[in-house]
């Protein structure tokens, strides 16, 4: 597009014509469910999956991820990437309308990104040239976002960043109409206006969110006329409502997975698929006794994750050894981790100067409130006792837990991780780079100059096997160092009525929120 500077890489893709998508008049209602009321429907302010689940239906992004997690055109009908991997030029679809009827333009992209960069997820935009200064309030704009003409926008990165297109598919990067955000101010969070296939019809707090088909969506009207998200906090109530025929999709309550799979009626409605998360036991490696690698490895050898996977979770999650979940690019089935081996655990305790656990003070294990977490903690307590390690359990609610974990006030703690986008950088760099120590993700407070260099190198490399290989080597080194113990990889467990067709079960979509595009869903 811009002479020799740009390498025309891809994607002349067909903008599906208006009649296409889904053709015909929208019909039917999907009855979904949320665990909690969404705090906001403003993409710049959302930080939780419930808000994101609605935001993704009301707004569009420049690109979106398909079921295989590959970026495909959305508001941008095509894009090119420069030879140095720093400049992305997006050409927008013509004729895209906001729910108000106004046409979307390239200026809306710049406005939306700058607005969201000062929202709750600034890290989505921090790779753009000049973004850090803008986020801090030291600059009036992000120079890395340039409007070239009505339909073309150019994004320039400080340095190459392979997962950048994934960030452009993230709901924080949704496009909003400037005039509506300015007119409504904070009320935009309750009266959102986007370009999405659905628009907000009704929001009764703590009761329901109703969205309805937007007939002028650029892909054509969705199949569904309406989606009702009931807000039901108790999982057993959601289950009862599903059984009573009041919901079309729901999650499977903890402890009911095996029973549901054996139920003659429900077993045909069970859907279990891997998602982008890992449940882990972590250590503060700066604090004794876990500043000693031998003690960390002793704990790792003393834990039997199969008791969690098979015993507590009824085999409805995915057993694993590595940090990266199987659905994430970079997953390494051949990765090795300290396995369950009590004799080895005792030997390591001896080498660390705690024979049979003698001399080792009780260790406080922090975890956040939840029946499953409580049961896992009790199991760990029993398993570690076998090698002479005394675990004291400390249960806090999420807000209190995350605070003590972020501040490094804990020694051993539960903390899972769910990738925001499907790239190993979002797991390994975020969780183990020394610049992210604390709230930014590295709550293990792990510092390794060698690994930092490796992460910096991999993050800037173009996608492909050499880059993946670097992450896999980092993952192996972290596991060998005993800095992380995987208990299991997350799986989404859902009940979906046979009449519901087209509901994507991508690794990004988790029950009961279903972050999948509902425009593809139809009720038969």
């Amino acid at each position, binding site marked *: 597009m811009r002479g020799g500077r740009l390498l025309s890489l891809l994607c002349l893709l067909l903008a599906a014509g208006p009649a296409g998508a889904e053709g015909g008049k929208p019909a039917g209602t999907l009855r979904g469910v949320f665990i*909690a*009321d969404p*705090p*906001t429907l403003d993409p710049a*302010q959302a*930080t*939780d999956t419930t808000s994101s689940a609605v935001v993704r239906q009301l707004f569009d992004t420049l690109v979106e991820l398909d079921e295989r997690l590959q970026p495909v055109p959305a508001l941008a009908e095509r894009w090119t990437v420069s030879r140095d991997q720093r400049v992305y030029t997006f050409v927008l679809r013509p004729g895209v309308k906001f729910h108000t009827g106004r046409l979307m333009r390239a200026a809306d992209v710049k406005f939306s990104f700058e607005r969201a960069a000062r929202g*709750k*997820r*600034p*890290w989505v935009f921090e790779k753009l040239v000049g973004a850090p200064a803008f986020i*801090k309030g030291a600059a009036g704009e992000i120079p890395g976002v340039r409007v070239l003409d009505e339909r073309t926008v150019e994004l320039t990165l400080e340095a190459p960043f392979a997962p950048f297109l994934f960030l452009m598919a993230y709901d924080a990067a949704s496009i909003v109409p400037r005039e509506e955000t300015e007119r409504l101010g*904070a*009320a935009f*969070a*309750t009266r959102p206006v986007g370009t999405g296939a659905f628009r907000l019809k009704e929001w*009764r*707090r*703590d*009761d*329901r969110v109703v969205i309805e088909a937007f007939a002028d969506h650029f892909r054509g009207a969705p199949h569904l006329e309406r989606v009702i998200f*009931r*807000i*039901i*906090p*108790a999982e*057993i*109530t959601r289950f*009862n*409502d599903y*059984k*009573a025929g*009041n919901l079309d999709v729901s999650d499977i309550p903890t402890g009911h997975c095996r029973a549901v799979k054996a139920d003659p009626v429900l077993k045909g409605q069970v859907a279990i698929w891997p998602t982008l998360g890992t449940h882990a036991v972590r250590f503060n490696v700066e604090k004794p006794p876990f500043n000693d690698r031998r003690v960390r490895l002793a704990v790792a050898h003393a834990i039997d994750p199969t008791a969690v996977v098979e015993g507590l979770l009824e085999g409805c999650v995915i057993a694993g050894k590595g940090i990266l979940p199987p659905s994430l690019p970079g997953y390494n089935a051949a990765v090795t981790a300290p396995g369950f081996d009590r004799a080895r655990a005792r030997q390591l305790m001896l080498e660390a100067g705690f024979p049979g656990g003698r001399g080792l003070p009780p260790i406080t294990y922090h975890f956040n409130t939840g029946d499953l977490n409580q049961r896992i903690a009790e199991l760990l307590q029993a398993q570690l006792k076998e090698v002479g390690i005394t675990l004291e359990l400390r249960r*806090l*609610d*999420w*807000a*209190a837990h*995350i*605070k*003590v974990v*972020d501040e490094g006030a804990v020694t051993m703690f539960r903390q899972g*991780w*769910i990738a*925001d986008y499907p790239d190993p950088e979002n797991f390994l760099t*975020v969780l183990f780079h020394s610049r992210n120590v*604390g*709230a*930014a*993700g590295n709550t293990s407070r792990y510092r390794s100059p060698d690994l930092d260099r490796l992460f910096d190198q991999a993050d800037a490399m173009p996608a492909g096997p050499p880059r993946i290989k670097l992450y896999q080597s980092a993952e192996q080194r972290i596991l060998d160092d005993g800095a992380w113990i995987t208990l299991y990889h997350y799986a989404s467990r859902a009940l979906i009525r046979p009449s519901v067709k087209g509901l994507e079960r991508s690794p990004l979509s988790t029950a009961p929120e279903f972050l999948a595009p509902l425009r593809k869903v139809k009720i038969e």
Partner: protein
Amino acid sequence: MSELLEPAAKRVLALLPVLLGVSVLVFALTAVGLGDPARAMLGQRADPELVEQIRRDYALDRPIHVRYAAWMARLLRGDLGTSYHQQRPVGEIIAERLPATGRLALAATGIAIVVGLGAGVAAALRPGRLLDQLLMGAAVLGISTPVFWLGMMLSLLFAVLLGWLPVSGYGDGAWAYLVLPALTLGAIHTGTIARMARSSLLEVIRQEYIQTARAKGLAEWLVVAKHALRNALIPVVTVIGIGLADLLVGAPLTETVFAWPGLGRMLVAAVGQRDLPVVMGAVLVFAVIYVFANLVVDLAYLVIDPRIRRGR
């Protein structure tokens, strides 16, 4: 009527220090409690600089007494502040939930008074008989059954198995949606009222003036309704007032089980999110409701028993 106004006014004035004390206590608890509202707002991955900026924006970096003074100054102007999470006025958030909680509390109280009083009177009239034992057994069951469990069982039976009533939700305010939550929330209260009504009525029935009324040939129902019940009501009214605390305590659980969009559920969520303005606002509303309910109870004493009014 003027005999009622003066003691009522005194009691209203006495409420002010109570409410002030509640506000200080709750503010202090939320301030010293673990967890950072700014961090809780940002999900699993938080930019430390953004956390600090939010703390500054919401004045969370200022000393607790300064924050309390600012909160109180706004409160005196009728402003409960703005929710950290929802970015909306707390007054608006509470006003959305108040009708649902009000309906539930009134229905639960109504059920508790009617059923509890009826059961207590019926049991007292046949002490030691099978009916008495059955009713008092049911009352003990109602008092001792955890709200969460009772709600789930009622829901399973009447909604899932029999399909007579909805499992959960508010509907569009339809009565069918209110039945199970109100029965669940009213259960403890019903049992307490029934037991108190029975024991109080038994005590009154044994007194000489009741024997006199019977000797005069009055019908038994008239003796109970006109002479015994009125005197037996004082302790029952006290229990009704105290029982309101049970309703307030039970409301979050009942609202959670039945996905009822009320204040209790909102309060629990706000505590989890460390949304301090919402927590303060909700607790203050609960305190006002509780204190005013007790005021009504105090006034009821004056109406029921003229001797109290006259200071005897």
